[in-house]
């Protein structure tokens, strides 16, 4: 496979370069802003014009992970000197640490629910896509359309029935409930995307494996899966990003044990004034898993499809 285009002119290259850089700046700027705000003091965070150069502070991060309280001046003076660096950060604000915040567990909930639903979605999606791609399924086209039709309205449109169903069967505010919900929403996307990828894999490979002494499941596992890895990885990223960032269902269906980070982050702001650095710190940490996951799978995203070992 090769193609050629006429070599673009210098002007075109320049224009393309400028567009790429401009687009990169536009998309990266909010990220940079959020990350920078997390390291500002509350005063710097709301300064106008915005401060590009500022004295970095870990106040936002300390405030994110702690709850703090004020004590009387006498008591404050009577305290022993702060034992840790983060206690000192809090003391400098004229407060003492009352205990850890709930950000850690909310974050953990996000990890469990986000990755749990992504894994489940990949298992079910790959199996369904393989079946649709390879087997004669009765009413195949209708079923595929029906699966897609679940995405024809915003998922939140069915929030009330889902809320009522979840309450009825006790899935409200549970990890399992949220995993199932996000899996259900993502499954249509993953079945369609993965079916496309599996359709691209010539069936001869599996036939060769069947003759080479493998069962269909072994052929699927040893021959189809490695070649579908690219598609599975990119689909998994889409699914994870949706489940990770989902806000509306999380607000409605979780409050205590299974609350994810997105509905929790805005609540940080209410604790003692507008604590923008703490919110920004929460958002920054929240970004990390998806970024790491995407970077780990980047190889698969860029590798493209394998050509060539079957003669067309």
């Amino acid at each position, binding site marked *: 496979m090769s193609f050629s285009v006429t070599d673009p002119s210098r002007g075109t290259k320049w224009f393309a370069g400028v567009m790429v850089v401009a687009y990169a700046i536009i998309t990266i700027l909010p990220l940079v802003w959020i990350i920078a705000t997390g390291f500002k003091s509350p005063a710097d965070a709301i300064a106008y014009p915005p401060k590009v150069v500022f004295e970095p502070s870990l106040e936002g991060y300390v405030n994110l992970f702690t709850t703090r309280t004020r004590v009387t001046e006498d008591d404050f003076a009577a305290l022993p000197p702060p034992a840790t660096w983060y206690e000192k950060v809090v003391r400098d604000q004229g407060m003492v640490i009352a205990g850890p915040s709930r950000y850690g567990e909310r974050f953990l909930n996000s990890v469990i629910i986000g990755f749990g639903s992504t894994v489940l979605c990949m298992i079910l999606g790959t199996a369904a896509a393989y079946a649709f791609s390879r087997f004669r399924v009765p009413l195949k086209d209708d079923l595929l359309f029906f699966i897609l039709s679940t995405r024809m309205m915003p998922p939140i449109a069915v929030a009330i029935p889902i809320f009522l169903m979840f309450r009825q069967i006790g899935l409200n505010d549970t990890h399992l409930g949220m995993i199932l919900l996000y899996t259900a929403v993502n499954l249509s996307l993953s079945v369609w995307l993965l079916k496309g990828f599996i359709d691209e894999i*010539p069936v001869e*490979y599996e036939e060769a494996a069947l*003759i080479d002494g493998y069962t269909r499941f072994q052929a699927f596992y040893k021959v189809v899966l*490695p070649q579908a890895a690219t598609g599975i990885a990119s689909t998994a990223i889409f699914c994870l990003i949706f489940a990770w960032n989902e806000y509306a269902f999380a607000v409605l269906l979780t409050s205590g044990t299974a609350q994810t980070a997105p509905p929790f982050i805005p609540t940080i702001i209410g604790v003692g004034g507008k604590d923008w650095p703490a919110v920004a710190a929460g958002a920054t940490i929240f970004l990390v898993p998806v970024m790491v996951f995407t970077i780990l799978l980047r190889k698969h995203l860029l590798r493209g499809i394998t050509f060539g070992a*079957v003669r067309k």
Partner: protein
Amino acid sequence: MAEVVLSGISKRFGEDVALDDVSMTVPDGSFVVLLGPTGAGKTTTLRMVSGLDVPDRGTISIDGRDMTGLTPAQRDVAMVFQQYSLYPHLTVRENLEFPLKSPVLRTPQDLIDRKVGEVAEILQISHKLGNKATELSGGEMQRVSIGRALVRNPLVYLMDEPLSSLDAKLRADLRVELKNIQSHSGATLLYVTHDQIEAMTMATHVGVLDHGRLVQFGTPRQIYEDPVSIYAASRLGLPRINVLPADLFGHAPDRAAYIGLRPEHISQGEGQESQVTRVEHLGDQTRLHLKFQNHDLITVTDAHTPLVSGDVVRIQPKKPLFFDADGARLG
């Protein structure tokens, strides 16, 4: 190392009849070549034996065992696909090891290494064992694909035009090599090809397929000398058999519509006059294109013939084959 018996195999794909009541016995240790144009049912026949497709009617048995309901893995057959179907995520070595490592065989590693080494040697791909399967040329892929079948010792080898994409020299080498392997191991081999040289040189038996029907099954010599129809006669022989109106040379039997003359079955020097239109010197022989009573025909003659285009030659048939109006052979 087994006899394969197909009895009454029929298969339709939608409206298309792929195989129509095909019965054939592939004797133990034979090298059977299936001949026929595209769509005649050759590949479908292989897929039936392999178990990749299931016949609508009829049964297949290998080594006396009924294969109905058995998966390809349970049948112990090896197959070389027309599309090489190498596993693209594996190296050449891993591709060759793949069947030996299957749960059916579970070959010990030292035996695997020896087998892979031997086969790579025969197929001249030893230097490519570390390559990714996708980094090979078409001919190399084809050889790896043959190798993946040869590492095993199955009851039956099934090969679907395995030499079609190789260059002439390699094809000639592998033709001899495949025949050697087959005759030494005593393996049963079912082989699909368009190439009649492969059929003539390798086959112990030839099956001629026409639109899903097996029209003739026999030794290459039988098919060549004693074809059942014009169709079967046209499958073997280069240049092709000359098919002319039956009474062109006079004295045709009853009901004969056509006379079939192999190029070597036209004797020169006596008989009726014909005009030479073209002379092709091939080195070991010379082909004469003749015009005889407004019909074109081709014959062979001496390598050093002095004949040139425009000369007149007297010809008469020798051992003619007669066919009726439907193309079926007469008596």
